[in-house]
């Protein structure tokens, strides 16, 4: 790794930190702009109680002081404050609990998407314009055009309502079978996208001179495909890993909602409808950091893997 690569990586890390800071700041001040106190609920509270609650949570201080305290709490103690609607629980504990399920779900979905996408894409490219290529392309085009919640709902209609093969509920009681549909829903779009990406990049690579050279040297067909063509055509797929994980994170918001999976997305959606601002802020920040970090890793990996790419 030369100094130029190092400089690039440092620059990207700096940008990522800046982005996270902007997200935290925007989230904080946008949530501050909401009129009214979070403690004014269905039950009428006396002004004295409200004032006491606000003092307890530090909401009577000037906004700038609150901002600095919030920032300090996050960085130093990973403390996002207490949840307002979920009594007696901190935002951090809710996030950690939700993350356990969501990360599992997301990683399985990402793994399935990568494997099926690369395999199908390579098959389509190697059998270009044959019937199998056409079928793969038609199916992936259809999947790329379907929002994840529609995909999830349709899967639910088919497998739960019509065929009653799988449980509708993704919560802990249903066991692993309950997670099958959420994982498939999350994986379909990225899998279709990766298939198309791999196919076009593989076709590009197969037309290169070094493939012809390898064949002319007498390298066996399989070695050309795996050792030369596939390896080089995976580079664009690496750049997609970051956006794919970001897609899975945002997609999980609705998918967890549809299948009642107790993950972070479900808490996020219920915090929106319940106006639980500390929870909204906490989950937004954590998910944003997740997305930014994944994009960063995928970007850096891309530059490290392919030495031909010139660095700015």
């Amino acid at each position: 790794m030369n100094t130029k690569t190092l400089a690039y990586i440092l620059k990207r890390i700096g940008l990522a930190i800046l982005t996270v800071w902007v997200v935290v700041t925007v989230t904080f001040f946008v949530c501050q702009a909401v009129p009214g106190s979070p403690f004014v609920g269905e039950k009428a509270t006396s002004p004295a109680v409200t004032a006491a609650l606000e003092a307890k949570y530090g909401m009577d201080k000037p906004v700038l002081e609150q901002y600095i305290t919030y920032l300090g709490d996050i960085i130093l103690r990973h403390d996002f404050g207490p949840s307002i609607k979920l009594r007696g629980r901190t935002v951090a504990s809710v996030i950690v609990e939700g993350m356990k399920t969501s990360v599992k779900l997301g990683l399985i979905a990402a793994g399935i998407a990568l494997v099926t996408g690369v395999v199908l894409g390579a098959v389509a490219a190697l059998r270009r314009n044959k019937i199998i290529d056409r079928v793969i392309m038609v199916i992936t085009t259809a999947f790329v055009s379907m929002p994840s919640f529609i995909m999830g709902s349709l899967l639910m209609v088919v497998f739960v309502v019509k065929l009653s093969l799988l449980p509708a509920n993704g919560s802990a009681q249903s066991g692993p079978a309950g997670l099958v549909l959420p994982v498939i829903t999350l994986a379909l779009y990225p899998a279709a996208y990766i298939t198309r990406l791999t196919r076009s990049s593989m076709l590009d690579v197969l037309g290169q001179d070094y493939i012809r050279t390898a064949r002319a040297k007498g390298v066996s067909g399989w070695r050309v495909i795996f050792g030369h063509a596939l390896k080089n055509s995976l580079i664009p797929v690496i750049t997609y890993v970051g956006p794919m994980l970001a897609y899975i994170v945002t997609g999980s918001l609705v998918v967890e909602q549809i299948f009642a999976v107790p993950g972070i997305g479900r808490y996020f959606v219920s915090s929106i409808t319940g106006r639980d601002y500390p929870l909204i802020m906490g989950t937004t920040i954590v998910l944003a950091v997740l997305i930014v970090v994944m994009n960063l890793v995928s970007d850096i990996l891309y530059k490290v893997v392919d030495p031909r790419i010139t660095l700015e």
Partner: protein
Amino acid sequence: MKKPFSLHVDVDAFLPASEEDKAYMVQMRPSSTFFKDGVKRLLKNKVATVSLMAIILITLASIILPFFWPYSYEQQLGVVPGKRVDASYNNLAPFAYGTTEQAMIDAGEKVFPHVFGTDAAGRDYFIRVVYGTRISLSVGFFASIIVLVIGILVGSVAGYCGGKVDLVIMRIVDMIYSLPDMLMVILLATVLKAALPDDILVGTVFEKIGTNILSLFIVFALLYWVSMSRLIRGQILSLREQEYVLAAQAAGAKGSWIISKHLIPNCISVVIISTALQIPSAIFTESYLSFLGLGVNAPMPSLGSLASDALNGITSYSYRLVIPAIVISLIVLSLNLLGDGLRDAFDPKLNA
């Protein structure tokens, strides 16, 4: 008689050309413009043509149908002022009728059928799907226009000016590019709903569709222009070095003239393609927000909110989910295919 091998000059060859000869030399075909060429290539592409027709058909249907459809999207059929609510109108199956309608049919009158039945509140589902399509399409269209205008403006300035201006703009673009857009949309939609006074939108187009769509537009205007402006900047950077720009500069043309008359027309193909591909992404975002309950205000439907509402009755009325799902997929699919077709037709360089 002239000898074939004579070296004498043939005088006939030097006669002035007749009108007929001159006409032969004139190119009579009308000159074809870049745009005409592109359209011609596009119409040769069967998939793209079918998608184009599908989009035109869906758009026209969503505009025209509400004018003569006897039901409206918000009319609850069982509810007549001063009478008890007639629950027989709720959850009608396709082509079924409520009690009073059935009585009218028995009496020999004609009643317009409920093609897709009615929803849980007794509203004609077909017209709700039509309205939902209208909302989704217009949100997609206007959001893309916003992105287009801002993207072109920023991208062309950055690309043409170069230097420090370019550097600053591109750092901002990098920044915005790495923001998680969906989370920002959700956050802004949540907060704007609570923060905006209720009467601020009265009298505007947003009165019926609500603050959520306004925040969707705001976020698109704030965040989504970056990829468009990156694209335009890249195009302009390479076009800027062309000789005709140098010629225009030498002739004393101003920067704004060169941008608007030379550079932008030359990257129009890229602009058309990415706008066509932007619309489905906006439709995706809108339906996603509607699904989370952050979309259009009730009773106005959108395809996303229709699908989301249908989830409650999924076991008995799954067709209510399938219908908007098919419409939304059809729209996005045909826009994507049209975008691909446009790319092939208007950017021949990419085919090489």
